[in-house]
C-alpha cells in the first residue's frame, strides 16, 4: 500500500516543483531529501486522506489538521524567518541556490491545550 514507485514519486516531484516555481516557492534542492518527504506525504494521503505534514503528528481528523495540511499555514512565515518550512520541503532562494543549508527550525504551531 505504501510502496510508491520511483516513477510515481518522480511525477509528483515534477508537478510540485513546477507549481512551486511558478508561484515563487522553491523545493529543497536536496532531491533525495525532497523525494523522501513526497513519499511521506503520499503515505499520509493514504493514511489520513490528506497531505498531513510529514513532521507533525496528524490527529486523523481533517478539521483539526487544516493548519498542517501541506503546504501548511506556517510555511510562508517559516521560509521568511528561517529559510525553510518545518519539514524543509520548501526553502528560500538562498538555500535553493546552495548558499546555505536547510536546518531544523522551531515549531511555530501553537501548543494545543
Amino acid at each position, binding site marked *: 500500500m505504501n510502496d510508491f514507485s520511483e516513477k510515481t514519486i518522480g511525477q509528483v516531484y515534477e508537478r510540485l516543483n513546477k507549481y512551486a516555481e511558478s508561484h515563487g516557492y522553491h523545493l529543497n534542492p536536496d532531491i533525495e531529501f525532497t523525494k523522501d518527504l513526497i513519499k511521506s506525504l503520499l503515505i499520509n494521503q493514504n493514511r489520513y486522506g490528506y497531505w498531513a505534514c510529514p513532521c507533525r503528528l496528524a490527529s486523523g481528523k481533517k478539521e483539526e489538521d487544516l493548519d498542517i495540511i501541506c503546504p501548511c499555514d506556517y510555511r510562508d512565515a517559516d521560509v521568511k524567518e528561517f529559510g525553510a518550512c518545518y519539514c524543509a520541503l520548501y526553502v528560500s532562494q538562498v538555500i535553493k541556490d546552495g548558499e546555505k543549508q536547510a536546518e531544523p527550525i*522551531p515549531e511555530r504551531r501553537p501548543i494545543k491545550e
Partner: protein
Amino acid sequence: MIKVEHVKGKNKGKIMLYVLSTCVWCRKTKDLLKDLGVEYYYIFVDQLEDSDKEQQMREVSKYNPHRSFPTLVINNDRCIVGFKEDEIREALGK
C-alpha cells in the same frame, strides 16, 4: 501494546527517542545515534494505536510542550527537540 524499538550500543544512560515514521529529520536523528554507536530506544508515535498515541504524547509533552518531533530524552531529564546534531553529539558523543 506500545512497540518500543531497541538499538544496541554503548551505554550512555537511558536514551529515549520519540519519532514519526514519515519525518526525515527524525530519520536523520536516528542515523546520527546509530553513527554515535549509543544504545537507545525509539517509538514511532504515528504508528501507535490511538490510546497508546495519546499516552505517549502526554509523556512527550512532559519534556516538550510543543509535542514536536524528534524529541530525544536522556535519563528522563535532558531533552533535545529537533535534529540538533551538535547538541546531540555534545550530549552523547564522548
